[in-house]
């Protein structure tokens, strides 16, 4: 049985000593997302390490694939439901579900209720899953009550707040609070940070020129900061913006928040 939230609520700003909570294991089931699983597995590895340092018992169910968002957003609702159903199966139970994507978490929170509206039993399972699912930064700050995870990274970074995470899921300043506690990290503000980076899943495939124009503007704002690391909570956006910048000669590196928070620790 996992421990109630209040047990972990650290006083604002207090550093949670990893060892202090290892004995009270919070059970976390990792929703890796199809993109991180297949293309950015190192992000999953970092998440696991950060969560374990904070005393979580991390599990991974191989029976997961995708949340169905690509199909849902394209209007292929029955297909989306089919894919989403497999996720309901993979995350039955009462573990916290944590995911490195604000967009996928938003799919569960925002779209599953309408996707499963017609079947009461499925709707209940979907609501249970949504209720247990957090985006990574939200889980650390709002569930575990942690802001300082003891990371060190001597770099200059800029944070891109992804649209679905902020607008549909409600991620606020959690990532910034976590980043502000990383030793050595200089965080620079990003102009027009609220504007979409142009990724939008299939959008960037269907309207490549419009997407590229959007990405190009985002890239110019990122470049202007002089940062050498672009940090975010959604791999699609990171891949899109950093990929665009590197194609234009920039040396910028994209890092998921989990990778930043996993920095500066002796690896196992």
């Amino acid at each position: 049985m996992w421990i109630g939230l209040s047990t972990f609520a650290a006083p604002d700003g207090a550093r949670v000593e990893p060892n202090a909570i290892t004995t009270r294991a919070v059970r976390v089931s990792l929703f890796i997302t199809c993109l991180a699983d297949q293309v950015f597995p190192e992000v999953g590895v970092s998440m696991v390490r950060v969560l374990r340092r904070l005393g979580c018992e991390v599990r991974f169910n191989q029976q997961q694939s995708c949340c169905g968002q690509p199909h849902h957003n394209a209007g292929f609702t029955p297909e989306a439901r089919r894919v989403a159903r497999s996720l309901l199966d993979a995350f039955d139970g009462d573990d916290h579900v944590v995911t490195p994507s604000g967009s996928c978490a938003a799919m569960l929170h925002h779209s599953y209720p309408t996707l499963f509206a017609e079947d009461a039993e499925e709707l209940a399972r979907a609501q249970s899953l949504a209720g247990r699912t957090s985006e990574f930064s939200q889980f650390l700050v709002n569930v575990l009550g942690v802001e300082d995870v003891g990371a060190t990274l001597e770099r200059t970074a800029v944070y891109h707040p992804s649209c679905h995470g902020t607008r549909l899921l409600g991620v606020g300043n959690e990532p910034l609070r976590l980043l502000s506690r990383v030793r050595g990290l200089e965080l620079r503000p990003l102009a027009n940070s609220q504007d979409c980076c142009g990724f939008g899943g299939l959008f960037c495939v269907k309207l490549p020129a419009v997407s590229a124009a959007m990405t190009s503007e985002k890239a110019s704002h990122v470049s202007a900061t002089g940062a050498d690391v672009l940090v975010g909570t959604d791999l699609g956006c990171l891949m899109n913006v950093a990929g665009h910048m590197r194609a234009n000669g920039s040396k910028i590196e994209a890092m998921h928040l989990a990778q930043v928070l996993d920095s500066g620790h002796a690896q196992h």
Partner: protein
Amino acid sequence: MHSTDLDFAERADLALENQFLRKAVRFTVDRLRNGKAAGSAALGDFESWRERGRAIRAHTIANLDRYLEQFCDNLERAGGHVHFAADAAEASEICVRIAKDRQAKLAVKSKSMVSEEIELNRHFEAAGIEALETDLGEWIVQLAHEAPAHIILPCIHKSRGEIRALFERHAGAELAEDTATLAGYARKTLRQRFLEADIGISGCNFAIADTGSITMFTNEGNGRLVTTLPRTHIALMGMERIVPSFADLAVMAELLPRSATGQKLTTYLNVISGPRRANEADGPDELHVVIVDNGRSNQLGDPDFQAILHCIRCGACLNVCPVYRQIGGHAYGSVYPGPIGAVLSPLFQPEQELATELADASSLCGACHEACPVKIPIHDMLVKLRERNARPGRKSRTERLMMELSASVLSSPAAFARAGRVARLLQRWTIFDGSRMTFLARRIPVVKNWLGTRRLPPPPKRAFRDLWPDLEREVKS
């Protein structure tokens, strides 16, 4: 003007090549959205005001029949005439008939999106009546034989030089390029026409059921001239543009100008309740309000789309939309551009090609919903429209096949894991080897497009699910 036989992507590509347009659009929307941020902050507790606005609009639309009845009764009592138009053609017919019955030669117009929607100018011209736009931006657009590029700022795509050239051609004389000279020319020229006009045509921001009033929020004053000088005033009103009472107007009047430009109130808010009365020096002898359906009532009772009738046409969603920001209004090819247009246009004109393509003109970033002063879930509606478009027979068979195939793979985790292994292996040889596109990839347009503008790290050898057994052991040791 973009040719309508181009599809959205082609029109967008054209817009992207127009560097003046792109710079002007970005500058304008930045000004407007910064204005909105300041204006809503000045009000304080803007979220409560939004919620209040949403509640008023939802209540009004849910009781639209009752409030329309009440409005019509009260307007008639105040001496106004009410007309009902089922569609664009009927709305134009009514206006043309009123004008012809009065032997009108000239109609002066203030800004009305409904008049654009029903193509009133074209119908007036066909009937031999001049329809003159008098909002400065609308007049410029009319002189250029174009369509408005933004709901509240129609000519953001026109440079000062282009405007001067249009005015010089109109004047048959040379003019200086400064704003005061150009605006002064418009004042002088149009003032004379106002005094000659037989008919004034306006829009209506909100009708008020309780008093039978129509209201207009304007800045230039042409809306007042149109409703003061000609003997006959025709107001075009979308059937949903109504609120119950002055108390509701007080809320909407705080939301509309702030959301549109950041102003606390527009220069003029005119609450008109009937025509000129006995012994009044000026004002129209007749007031006609034309209530237009044109696809709106189809949304009533539809749980997915009824809320689109809550829209108050402030344009805030255009100003935050990252797609509009890059391409401006004309690429949408519809009367209403931007996110609201991408929803309104296919709903009002479901038979047209717009129905299928505009729904895709969004990255679903949700900025439109966030900016909307009455909280319309525009991004959800775009998904619902895509759902309609995805019905068998409406989308390309390739897309349907891809979607069905990928759903089959993704809904089976075992198949997904296998497919992932194969894909990662194959793609090194076929698509991208970590530093460059392969010969094959360069021949697949979609892949070439995507990878041509983005450099990706080399694909991993193993997926996370393949690494998990080691990670699991890590903690046990």
